[in-house]
C-alpha cells in the first residue's frame, strides 16, 4: 500500500476528519467541490449516530445537542477502528471523564461505562447459565472449593461515592426520568446479565462486586466469600449467591472442582 491509490486514500482521510478550517491542501480540487461535504457529513454523522445509539443513558442525561457536540470531538480524536459500530465507544467513558465541559457532571463517565457494559453483555458469546440445581445439596466444604466462571455476558461495577446505578437505570429506558431530587447520594453498583437471551440489570453491592472479582480471577468460592466479607462484614452470603444464580451470572461450563 505505497502506490498512488494509497496516497489518495491517506489524503482523503485527512480531508474527511480535519475541521473545515484545517483541511490539507493536497486534494484541493476535490475538497473544494460542494459534494465533498456529503462525504464529510456522512462519515461524521455515521460515527456520532453510532455513539448516540450505544450510549442512550448518557444521551438522556445531557440532551441531544450536548451529546452530539461532545461526540463530534471524540470522533475526531478517536475514530472507529471496527466496522461493527455496535462496538464503537470503548474509549468514550474515559473521554467523558477527562472532558472539561463534563466537570459539572462527575457521574457521566460512570453512566457511560454502564451503557458500554450493556452493549458488551448484549453482544457476548452464548453459553448456558449455571442453574441452582447444580449446586443444591453440596456440603459447604465442597461448595467452598468450587470455582465458578462468570457468564460471558455478565458485567458488574461498584461506584464508591455516587448513585450510578439509579442514575443509569432511570435514564436507560424509563419513559420518564424524574428530577433526581429523590436520589440518595451514596455509592451504588450494578450487575448486568443475560440469563434468557435478553440483557437485564439489578442494583448490586460492593461485597457482591468483590465476590465476582474473585470468581473472575479464578478463585474458589471460599476465597470469593472471604473477599466479599472483607468488603462488607454484614453481607448475607447465601442471599448473595442466590441472587447471582437467579440473575444467571455464572456460566454452566463450571463448576470445576478445585482439587489440590
Amino acid at each position, binding site marked *: 500500500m505505497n502506490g*498512488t491509490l494509497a496516497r489518495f486514500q491517506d489524503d482523503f*482521510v485527512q480531508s474527511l476528519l480535519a475541521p473545515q478550517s484545517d483541511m490539507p491542501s493536497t486534494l484541493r480540487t476535490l475538497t473544494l467541490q460542494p459534494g465533498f461535504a456529503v462525504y464529510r457529513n*456522512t462519515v461524521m454523522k455515521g460515527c456520532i449516530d453510532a455513539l448516540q445509539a450505544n450510549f442512550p443513558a448518557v444521551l438522556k442525561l445531557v440532551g441531544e445537542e450536548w451529546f452530539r457536540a461532545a461526540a463530534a470531538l471524540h470522533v475526531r480524536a478517536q475514530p472507529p477502528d471496527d466496522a461493527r459500530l455496535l462496538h464503537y465507544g470503548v474509549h468514550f467513558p474515559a473521554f467523558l471523564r477527562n472532558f472539561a465541559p463534563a466537570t459539572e457532571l462527575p457521574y457521566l463517565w460512570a453512566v457511560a461505562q454502564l451503557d458500554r457494559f450493556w452493549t458488551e453483555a448484549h*453482544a457476548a458469546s452464548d453459553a448456558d447459565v449455571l442453574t441452582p440445581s447444580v449446586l443444591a445439596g453440596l456440603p459447604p466444604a465442597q461448595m467452598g472449593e468450587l470455582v465458578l466462571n462468570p457468564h460471558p455476558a455478565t458485567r458488574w461495577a461498584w461506584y464508591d461515592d455516587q448513585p450510578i446505578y439509579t442514575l443509569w437505570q432511570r435514564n436507560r429506558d424509563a419513559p420518564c426520568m424524574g428530577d433526581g431530587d429523590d436520589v440518595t447520594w451514596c455509592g451504588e453498583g450494578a450487575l448486568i446479565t443475560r440469563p434468557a437471551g435478553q440483557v437485564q440489570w439489578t442494583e448490586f453491592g460492593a461485597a457482591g462486586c468483590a465476590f465476582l472479582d474473585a470468581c473472575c480471577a479464578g478463585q474458589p468460592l471460599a476465597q470469593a466469600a472471604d473477599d466479599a466479607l472483607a468488603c462488607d462484614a454484614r453481607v448475607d452470603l447465601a442471599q448473595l449467591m442466590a441472587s447471582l444464580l437467579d440473575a444467571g451470572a455464572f456460566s454452566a461450563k463450571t463448576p470445576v472442582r478445585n482439587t489440590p
Partner: protein
Amino acid sequence: MRYPDITAGLGLKLQHFDAALENADTGMWFEVHPENYLVDGGPRRALLECIRARHPVSLHGVSLSLAADVAPDQAHLARLAALVEQIEPVLVSEHLAWSAWRGMYLPDLLPFPRTQAALSRIASNIACTQDALGRRIAIENPSHYIAIAGHDWDEIGFLTELTRRTGCGLLLDVNNVYVSANNQGYSAEAYIDTFPADALMEIHLAGHSLDPQLGKGLLIDSHDAPIAPEVWRLYERLIARCGPCPTLIERDEQIPAFADLLAERGKAHALLCNTELACV
C-alpha cells in the same frame, strides 16, 4: 427469474421485525448489513436466525473496503465467512468503494480514481473475498458526489472488467445511477442501457434527497424517502432490457410503517412478474 423463489425484498428493520417474520407474500426476502450481526452471540444472532428460518436472507456488506489499497481485514473476513456459513444467504454483496483505512473505519462508501492499479487491487480483493466465503459475490455501483481526475476507466468498463477477472456478479443500484448521473452530468438511461446484463445478480431501489443548499444540483443517496418516479422509470427500463432480477427496497432513515414499505415492494414485485410473463 435468476432465482426462482425470490422477487422483491425489503431491507430488514428491527422495528418491523415481527411483521417481517410473519409476512407470507410470494417471493419475499430480506436483506441485512452483516456488520450488525457480526457479534459473538446474543439476541442479534438469534433474531437473524429467526428470520432466515422463515425467509431467504441476503447479506449486503458495507465495510469490506474492497477499493482500499490493502487486502481485506482477515479477522473481519473470517467473521463474515462464519456468518455466511450459519445463515446460508441467498445473495452476498459489497460495494465498489472503500471505508476502512490504516486501522480506521469511516462509515461511508468512499470514491477513488478508477486506475489500472485500482483495478488490479480491487480484483485481487474480490477474489480473496470470494475464496474466503466460498461463493460468488455481487459488487454494487456507488453514488458519486465529486468529480475525480485520473480515471483510466469509466464505471461500466471497470465493473465489466472486474466481472471478467474475478467471475463476480454485479448489484445495480438504480437510485445510485440516477443520483450519480444527475451529480456528474451524464445520461442515466445510457448507463442502464450499457450495464453488463449477464453479470446482474441483484437490483437496489431507494429514495434520495436534495442537498439543502444546492437543491437539484446535488442529489444525496439518503435512503430516507419513497423511490422517486424517475428511478421507477429507470428500473422498468432495466428489467425490460435485462429480464427480472431480485430487487431490494432500501430505507434507512425516516422509516415509515411496514405497510408503506410493503406497498413499494408490491409494486416492484408486480413489475418483475409482468416482465417475467413478457419474457416467456
